[in-house]
C-alpha cells in the first residue's frame, strides 16, 4: 500500500510575504503634552512581530523648571493597551544627561491592532533630544 503524507509544513512567518516595519521619531524638542510620534497598524490577514524598541532622551538644554518626561512604545488592540518600553522620569537639569530603554521584544500583534510611540515633557523651558523607534516584521497570518 502506498502511504502518502498530506502534511505539508507551513512556511515560517519570515517566509510569508514578510516585510520589515519601522516607526521612528528623532528630534530636539521643547516642553510639550502627549503626542503620538509614530503608529503602525496591522492590516487584514497580516500579523506583526514587534522585535526591538529604542527609547532615548538626552538633556540638550536645561529646563527652568524640570518636569515629568514620558516616552513610551505601546501596543493597542482597540480596547486595551500596554507599554512595551517606557521612560518616565523627571527631566535632568544636567546638560548631556542620558536615559534610555532599549530592549528586544517578541510581541505579536494581530489584524487591526497597532503599535505606537508617544512623547511628552512637562518642563518649563529647556529642550530634550528624543529618539523613539521600533522595528518589527509584518507577515501573512
Amino acid at each position, binding site marked *: 500500500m502506498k502511504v502518502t503524507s498530506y502534511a505539508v509544513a507551513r512556511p515560517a512567518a519570515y517566509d510569508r510575504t514578510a516585510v520589515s516595519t519601522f516607526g521612528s521619531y528623532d528630534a530636539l524638542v521643547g516642553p510639550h503634552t502627549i503626542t*503620538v510620534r509614530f503608529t503602525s497598524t496591522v*492590516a487584514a490577514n497580516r500579523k506583526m512581530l514587534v522585535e526591538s524598541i529604542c527609547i532615548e532622551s538626552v538633556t540638550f538644554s536645561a529646563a527652568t523648571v524640570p518636569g515629568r518626561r514620558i516616552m513610551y512604545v505601546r501596543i493597542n488592540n482597540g480596547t486595551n493597551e500596554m507599554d512595551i518600553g517606557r521612560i518616565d522620569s523627571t527631566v535632568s537639569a544636567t546638560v548631556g544627561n542620558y536615559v534610555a530603554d532599549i530592549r528586544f521584544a517578541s510581541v505579536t500583534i494581530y489584524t487591526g491592532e497597532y503599535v505606537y510611540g508617544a512623547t511628552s515633557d512637562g518642563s518649563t523651558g529647556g529642550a530634550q533630544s528624543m529618539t523613539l523607534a521600533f522595528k518589527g516584521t509584518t507577515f501573512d497570518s
Partner: protein
Amino acid sequence: MIIRLALIGSGTTSDPYRVDLPTYSGVVTDETTGRAFADVPAIDVSLDVAAFVAAYPTYDLVTPLPVPFPPALANAWAEHLARQYDLGNARWKPVIF
C-alpha cells in the same frame, strides 16, 4: 512621503495629539496652528492625494495652504485607506491642512 496634516487630539493621556492615519512616522507638530508633518508610507497615499501634495508643497507648520484640501479628495483618501487595511470600516479620515 512627508505630508502636512491636521493635528487631532488634545494632548491628554486619553486623547494624545496625533494624526488620523493608520501608519505614520516622525511626527513633528505645532499645536497652535493645529498642523503636523508626518512621514506616510507611499502605499497608503492614493495617486490623486500624492498629486495634491506635489502641487501644493508645504515648508512650515504655519503658512496656510493656498487652496483647501477638497472634501472629495479627503473622502477618496479615506476609502483608499479602508481598502488598503480592509478592517471593515473607514476609520481614518486624514486631512491635508
